[in-house]
């Protein structure tokens, strides 16, 4: 096949497949941008190596400080004290904020952070600003992330002495495709090309697969299939994956994830210590920011201590005569966060159910992320999986980035003489994808946990006689009603030949290709006619931009249910 002679400008922000131009492919680096911490790793020719910054840190805080003219991030910046991040001038937790609209509960929960998160609650992007010289200066999560990535890239380029372009990034399972485009956008702003976006627990699964391969090689064993349950709790997200590994190939059986994490544990605990902390903080004055910063640091510190000791004394002077002085024990911490732990439990149970895996068949249970140090969580996971011990030959904070670096090497076409890169992860779709039909219902066409690449279709029909148009609104998620899901895009099918309602067959096909590009195809067929009545439509998604919550309402207001679709009922 000839290479096309001309290229045109794309207005699509999502990145596609990388073309191979050189005989010596560049090894893509792995990046794990956590809500709280970030790390970067690369396959150095024989093993994965974590890169360190000039202060010899492998784990770098994910934040960007806006000071005077030049912003600086957690890669290069020398923190004099933790409180510097909490002065209002630094933006952090961008992974929790990226690609979310201002009606999102996660955005609302971010309002008690020291920088400004303002919402209008109408489904547009929230207003985010940092305090620079007593002025709130606006920014976006994408911009903050890009500034941070530029620092990471500069650091890696300096150490590896070559330009860095290709990256593999880990992402939370619960990220919508719209959020993925925001991550790709931030990378593009930083001059990085995303080779792959990997759900965090699948990166851990890849590392586990490599370790199991090594064991097989050493023992010359047969290498039977091993089933691993991976639970990851970071500061912003919790994810579960079940993988079946044999011979270096991991089939992901199921994924589950939610935007719950250490940040929620922290906020619940702060509320416990100072019940009116949110209202005290609502005006974001200099003094309030300072006292919230003090409370945050003290609470964080206490939570960390509660992982190793059963009680901790908290003494913090918030200024203006208010003080928090309290002895908190581990039970209290667990009770305050009971709902979070319940949600974790539900995620694991849902994942096991979707994977159709029996608990007795699980070979190893792997707990990673900052949350893996919490005794309650360790016991909970062990309890569900009926295991005495957790898999312990993996560094819980480095596992995801190591997996991403392995994937970077594999996807760059690098091979290893000892077979250490003889690896493959077969991914599944983390969320269902479907359209709005039967009123306000979400009808999934590709259910969650379908092996990729995937292609599935479903037949719909018109709701009125002589309906000549139909609106196809594509959503991603698990909710029964469309508004509980993420809007990905919409288009109208026009020119449907006039016919009684229920007669035209409107076939909607969803295709996710090998590079995770999503396309929707829609065609109309009239009974008795072998050919499509009108040309088939092919739409690449997501097409929505910021303010997509707004769009759905506008569509509803304009069209009501006049150009709706209905599923063709299966008879009993």
């Amino acid at each position: 096949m000839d290479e096309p002679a001309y290229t045109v400008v794309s207005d699509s922000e999502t990145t596609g497949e990388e073309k191979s131009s050189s005989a010596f492919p560049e090894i893509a680096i792995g990046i794990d941008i956590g809500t709280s911490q970030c790390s970067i790793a690369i396959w150095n020719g024989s093993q994965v190596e974590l890169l360190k910054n000039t202060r010899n840190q492998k784990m770098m805080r994910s934040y960007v400080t806006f000071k005077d003219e030049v912003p600086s991030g957690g890669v290069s910046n020398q923190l004099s004290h933790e409180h510097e991040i909490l002065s209002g001038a630094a933006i952090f937790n961008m992974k929790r904020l990226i690609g979310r609209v201002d009606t999102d509960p996660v955005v609302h929960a971010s309002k008690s952070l020291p920088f400004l998160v303002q919402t209008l609650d109408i489904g547009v992007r929230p207003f985010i600003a940092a305090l620079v010289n007593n002025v709130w200066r606006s920014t976006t999560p994408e911009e903050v992330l890009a500034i941070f990535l530029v620092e990471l890239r500069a650091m890696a380029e300096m150490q590896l002495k070559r330009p860095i372009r290709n990256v593999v990034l880990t992402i939370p399972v619960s990220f919508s495709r719209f959020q993925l485009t925001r991550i790709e956008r931030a990378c593009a702003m930083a001059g990085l090309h995303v080779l792959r976006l990997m759900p965090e627990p699948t990166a851990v699964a890849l590392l586990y697969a490599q370790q199991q391969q090594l064991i097989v090689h050493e023992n010359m064993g047969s290498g039977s299939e091993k089933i691993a349950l991976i639970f990851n709790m970071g500061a912003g997200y919790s994810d579960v994956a079940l993988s079946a590994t044999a011979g270096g190939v991991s089939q992901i059986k199921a994924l589950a994830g939610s935007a719950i994490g250490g940040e929620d544990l922290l906020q619940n605990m702060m509320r416990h210590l100072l019940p009116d902390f949110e209202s005290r903080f609502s005006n974001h004055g200099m003094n309030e920011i300072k006292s919230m910063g003090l409370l945050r640091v003290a609470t964080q510190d206490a939570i960390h201590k509660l992982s190793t000791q059963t009680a901790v004394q908290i003494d913090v002077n918030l200024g203006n005569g208010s003080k928090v002085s309290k002895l908190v024990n581990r039970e209290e911490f667990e009770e305050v966060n009971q709902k979070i732990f319940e949600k974790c439990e539900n995620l694991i149970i849902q994942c096991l159910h979707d994977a159709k895996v029996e608990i007795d068949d699980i070979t190893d249970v792997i707990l990673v992320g900052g949350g893996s140090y919490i005794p309650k969580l360790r016991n909970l996971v062990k309890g569900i999986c009926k295991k005495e011990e957790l898999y312990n030959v993996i560094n819980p904070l480095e596992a995801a980035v190591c997996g991403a670096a392995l994937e970077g090497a594999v996807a760059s076409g690098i091979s290893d003489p000892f077979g250490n890169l003889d690896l493959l992860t077969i991914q599944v779709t983390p969320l269902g994808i479907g359209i709005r039909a039967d009123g306000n219902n979400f009808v999934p066409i590709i259910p969650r946990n379908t092996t990729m690449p995937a292609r599935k279709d479903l037949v719909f029909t018109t709701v009125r006689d002589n309906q000549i148009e139909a609106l196809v609104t594509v959503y991603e998620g698990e909710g029964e009603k469309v508004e509980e899901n993420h809007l990905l895009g919409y288009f109208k099918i026009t020119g449907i030949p006039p016919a009684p309602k229920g007669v035209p067959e409107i076939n909607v096909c969803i295709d996710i290709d090998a590079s995770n590009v999503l396309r929707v195809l829609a065609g109309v067929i009239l009974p008795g006619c072998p050919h499509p009545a009108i040309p088939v439509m092919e739409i690449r998604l997501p097409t929505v931009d910021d303010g997509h919550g707004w769009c759905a309402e506008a569509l509803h207001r304009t069209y009501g249910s006049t150009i709706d679709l209905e599923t063709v009922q299966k008879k009993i």
Partner: protein
Amino acid sequence: MMNKTKKLWKPFSDVVGRTLPYSTSRRFETYNPNNTSSHLSSSSQLQILNLCLPHCFSQNLIFSGKNFSSESAEKFNNSACWNCNAVPKATPFLFCECCRSVQPLHHSLDYFQIYGLDKNYEIEDENLERKYKDWQKKLHPDLVHSKSQREREYAAEQSARVIEAYRTLTNPLSRAIYILKLEGIDVNEEETVSDPELLTEIMEIREAVEDAADSKALNEILSPVQEKLIQWSNSFANAFRNQKFDEALNCTRRMTYYDRVNKEIMKKL
């Protein structure tokens, strides 16, 4: 009304084919190797996209009944490797062991052949998952990233077909429908059974599912349904072995009913 409209269309997926432009390299071209300062590349910088038109879409829009017969004349792709011209050493030839390149998709190859199985309904093959992984390790698109566009397209198609074959063969009902299709018998999944006893039974199960208070109650409904599925799957095997296709068809219809309630229960669990 709907039962009068006969299904004339083929699944859309068949119609449009898998020949979508898999690698229309749309991406940002904002990288500048000389620019290592921490300035952000402006988003308004020129972005470049390869103009790759989809393969002629219309040529795939023919509603032809596919010849599923594995005994067809072009049975095996006896052609040599497209890349190195080596003669295939093993069948099925999806991957050339000489130059390690993925071969083009041959629709004449059926799912049983892909997995090296005889065309029997009962596949007491414990190693289906292993074979699936073996194929993926050779064919998966992730592994041919640095190869030519042509081979990457082959990999996308082959890998998708191996997945589809695995999915079809591991489910007793879809395997039954598929193996009948290979015999030239099309199963209309929408066709109804006029056995009042079965219909009453299904109705009762549905009601029980709706009334079920917890997962324990659901599990109690589930196990007899799954037993019935196994029972009819065994009957199908018998009928198919003895070439009693009408009886086999009847079995698939019953399996369809139980399979549907099974799915409904699993969804609620």
